[in-house]
């Protein structure tokens, strides 16, 4: 287990302790057991709150994106495990400024049940909640069953764009509509080269040979579409772009942002090698690339691999994507 940790059962709490110690200007812990992170700075009354939540081990997702122009609060589960409904309810309570709260998170069974339950809990306190689920992973279900897809890195676009709308003072209905439009316009696919280790499990989540890769694998090691010998970078990038563009064709004049994301261990050098092909494919389709994101935005701890995310933009989404935001992991404007 090539991890730097103490008692595995303290992995998440120690991570959060270090996070707030390093960035007190950005993050503050809340909740009975310290599993809610909210902005260090008070937000103004009447601002729509945006909360997310999910398992740990994906930094900067989820916790990292709490910040100005982004999220208001996040409920934090153990590595790859859903937070409890009560923790989510706490996140909602912290985020509420009287204008309602959008629950914006990835489509995983446990998270959905718990966020729904959290909504029931805070309903007793008259906090109005809406929900937008990210289900952007094209490898996880056919287009006919879109709603069953997993939520992956597309989340980052939704956080950014909905966060900007809320910061700009839009109401809950509009923030929700904009988040849903973003979710509808995101498509992602990942490819993994190596596994990662959940601290409490103590051994790799799955096994993959030294010369193999898996196309379409999910961020917890969920099965993909094929496993085979590692291919050249340009072939991998081409196939990933094929699968994204098949699912969401682009045509001349379209404006799109693209994220080339490392799952953790894959270095930026290799992301840039891939980006050459990504850029060419989008330009060949006649699309204009807006604010490409190349780096580590949504990870699985030390997993080697990449994901690509397309986010198709209209004028409204593009303006919000480019609006300022600020957290310890990402700044725009």
């Amino acid at each position, binding site marked *: 287990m090539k991890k730097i940790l103490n008692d595995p059962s303290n992995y998440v709490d120690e991570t959060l302790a270090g996070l707030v110690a390093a960035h007190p200007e950005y993050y503050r812990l809340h909740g*009975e057991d310290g599993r809610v992170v909210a902005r260090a700075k008070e937000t103004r009354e009447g601002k729509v709150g945006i909360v997310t939540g999910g398992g740990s081990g994906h930094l900067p997702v989820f916790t990292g994106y709490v910040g100005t122009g982004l999220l208001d609060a996040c409920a934090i*589960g153990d590595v790859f*495990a*859903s*937070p*409890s*409904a*009560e*923790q989510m*309810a706490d996140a909602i309570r912290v985020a509420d400024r009287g204008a309602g709260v959008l629950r914006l998170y990835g489509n995983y*069974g*446990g998270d*959905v*049940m*718990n966020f*729904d*339950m959290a909504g*029931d*809990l805070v309903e007793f306190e008259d906090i109005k909640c809406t929900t937008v689920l990210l289900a952007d992973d094209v490898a996880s279900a056919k287009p006919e069953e879109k709603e069953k897809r997993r939520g992956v890195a597309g989340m980052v676009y939704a956080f950014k764009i909905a966060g900007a709308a809320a910061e700009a003072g839009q109401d809950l209905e509009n923030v929700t509509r904009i988040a849903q439009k973003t979710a509808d316009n995101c498509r992602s696919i990942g490819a993994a080269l190596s596994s990662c280790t959940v601290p409490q499990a103590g051994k790799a989540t799955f096994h993959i040979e030294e010369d193999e890769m898996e196309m379409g694998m999910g961020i917890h090691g969920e099965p993909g579409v094929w496993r085979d010998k590692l291919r050249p970078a340009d072939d991998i990038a081409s196939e990933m772009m094929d699968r994204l563009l098949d699912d969401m064709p682009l045509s001349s004049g379209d404006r799109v942002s693209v994220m080339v994301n490392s799952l953790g261990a894959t270095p930026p050098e290799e992301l840039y090698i891939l980006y050459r092909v990504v850029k060419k494919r989008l330009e060949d389709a006649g699309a204009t690339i807006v604010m490409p994101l190349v780096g580590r935005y949504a990870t699985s701890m030390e997993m080697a691999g990449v994901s690509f995310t397309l986010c198709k933009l209209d004028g409204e989404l593009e303006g919000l994507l480019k609006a300022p935001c600020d957290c310890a992991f990402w700044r725009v404007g």
Partner: protein
Amino acid sequence: MIGKAELLAGIDRLAAAMERDFEELNQADGALGDGDLGVTMTRGMRAIKEKAADLPDDLGMALLACAQAFTKSSGSSYGTLMATGLMAIAKDVKGKDSVDPGETSRLAALARDAMMARGKAELGGKTVLDSLDAVAKATEGQSDPDRLADAAVQGAERAMDDFRDKPATVGRARIFAEKSKGMDDPGMLAMTRIVKALAGRN
């Protein structure tokens, strides 16, 4: 009538049963899933026991507090489903200090339906829903405490027998659908133990 005293006694029996079944439930869940079902139930019941002394007389408010204690203790699917069922019953009995045992069937069905909505699953999928459904049906028209207890236990056990050879269709176990044939669903097993403990039929 079932009042606060009966509730507290039920909590005691259930908490004890879950401590006893810790390993067995973990193992049943581990065969097809992530092996945490014993953890979920033990932690949940411990959390409820801690609140027991402070529970209000209003049965609805008392059950709501139990549900909240349970959700606080874990984010697992089963814990959330249990709390969902409890909350549905809590809403129904809110304002009452006691309920008639004859209401058992209706309340079990209420919990079942809330949990179906929460988990977006159907009946017949070899889950805790089928156990509750069987309990609701077996207890229909029963109000004598002793007969009610026997009927509930029989319902839960019959559901396990009926579904044992079917494939899992929900949650992590779905991936191992074939392997799961012949094995009890861990959530159904847990519900059988819950019913037995509440019925005082260990």
